[in-house]
């Protein structure tokens, strides 16, 4: 750490790079490939951030279709198999007067994954095509998506509890369906997509004249 960073200037302007593992910074030179503090790989921006995000987003978009079309659980009752998709499960919750629970499940398993994919596609497109859209608002959307994303695992936990409770040789048992695996892929892919996206790219993509304007304001 020979050079001390000054507040109010980006790392790029100061010729510094921040380590993503330990959060310390060092000079950005071509011969510095490892962080001097923790010895992990260091780079100015996450490598191939946009490509990785796109690949994971496309995976999520493909798998969200089977996740919603095919049954996520099968209920075996008196030797009859009753399949349940995500949506039909929510409808049956509403029918049995549990609107609150239905709302939680709806938000966690339908609203959040779709919202997350749409928001990430929008932000990555905005970065890639250099759209004129408030950088701070983009980051706000991103951090909301990042924070809310983990809650879509909820449905998988519920399935695991239901399977365990009902799968012990009684007349009633529950099995996970094809959609459960697809839904898992969607959740994991979106989590990794948000993780591989480098938020600093939002500011890099802003037109230079906007960039200098915001710097004057600060």
């Amino acid at each position, binding site marked *: 750490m020979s050079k001390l960073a000054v507040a109010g200037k980006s790392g790029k302007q100061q010729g510094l790079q921040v380590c993503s593992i330990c959060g310390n910074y060092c000079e950005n030179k071509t011969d510095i490939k490892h962080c001097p503090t923790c010895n992990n790989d260091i780079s100015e921006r996450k490598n191939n951030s946009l490509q990785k995000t796109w690949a994971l987003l496309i995976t999520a978009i493909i798998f969200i279709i089977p996740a919603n079309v095919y049954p996520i659980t099968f209920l075996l009752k008196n030797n009859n198999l009753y399949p349940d998709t995500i949506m039909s499960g929510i409808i049956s919750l509403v029918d049995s007067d549990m609107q609150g629970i239905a709302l939680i499940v709806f938000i966690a398993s339908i609203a959040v994954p779709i919202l997350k994919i749409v928001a990430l596609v929008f932000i990555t497109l905005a970065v890639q095509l250099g759209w004129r859209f408030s950088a701070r608002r983009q980051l706000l959307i991103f951090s909301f998506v990042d924070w809310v994303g983990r809650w879509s695992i909820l449905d998988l*936990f*519920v399935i695991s509890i239901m399977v365990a409770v009902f799968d*012990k040789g009684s007349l009633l048992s529950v099995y996970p369906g094809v959609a459960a695996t697809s839904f898992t892929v969607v959740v994991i892919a979106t989590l990794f997509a948000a993780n591989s996206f480098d938020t600093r790219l939002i500011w890099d993509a802003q037109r230079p004249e906007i960039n200098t304007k915001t710097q004057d304001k600060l």
Partner: protein
Amino acid sequence: MTSAIPTMDTGHVAKCIRCEQVIYKKSWCNPSGLLALCITALIITIPAFNLPLISIHLLGITEETNLIQGAIMMIDVAPLVSFVVLLCAVIAPTLLVLSIAISSVSLALNHKAIFLPKVFKVTRLLIHWSMLEVYMVSLMVAIFKLMNYADLYIGSGFYFFVALLLLNLTIISNYSNHQYWEKYQSL
């Protein structure tokens, strides 16, 4: 935006001037205190995962369910689902507490262990995958769903699980990866 860490009092946070995200948090981050919390959490982990969380009475049969059974049961039908549930509800929270415990022991004893950087790195990754609070909400959803079918009783594991969740949240909110790196450097 890159900036040197300013001197701050405990409980204050430094925010990025461009995006207003917290970039540095000066929390109560005392290795020996965290170690005590981690050991408590590790002890509570055993009953929380092994004792029954809920039990139901159905057609004269009582069935009990614990956290690990739930994940293991699906392993041949849907291995991926089972793996993710195990990872987020069992493996990640336990490993997270364990890795914070290991790094705290080493920092509390002023011992500069060579494996510490790896432990810090793993801890940072695991924080994202530890989802006990999501599991808690899922448990509530499952309980409400199951009340339609059968009589439901809350098992003893449930209380241990709540305790584990609270401990876990305390540990995560007080742990600061960056401060541990600083302490490691100054050893």
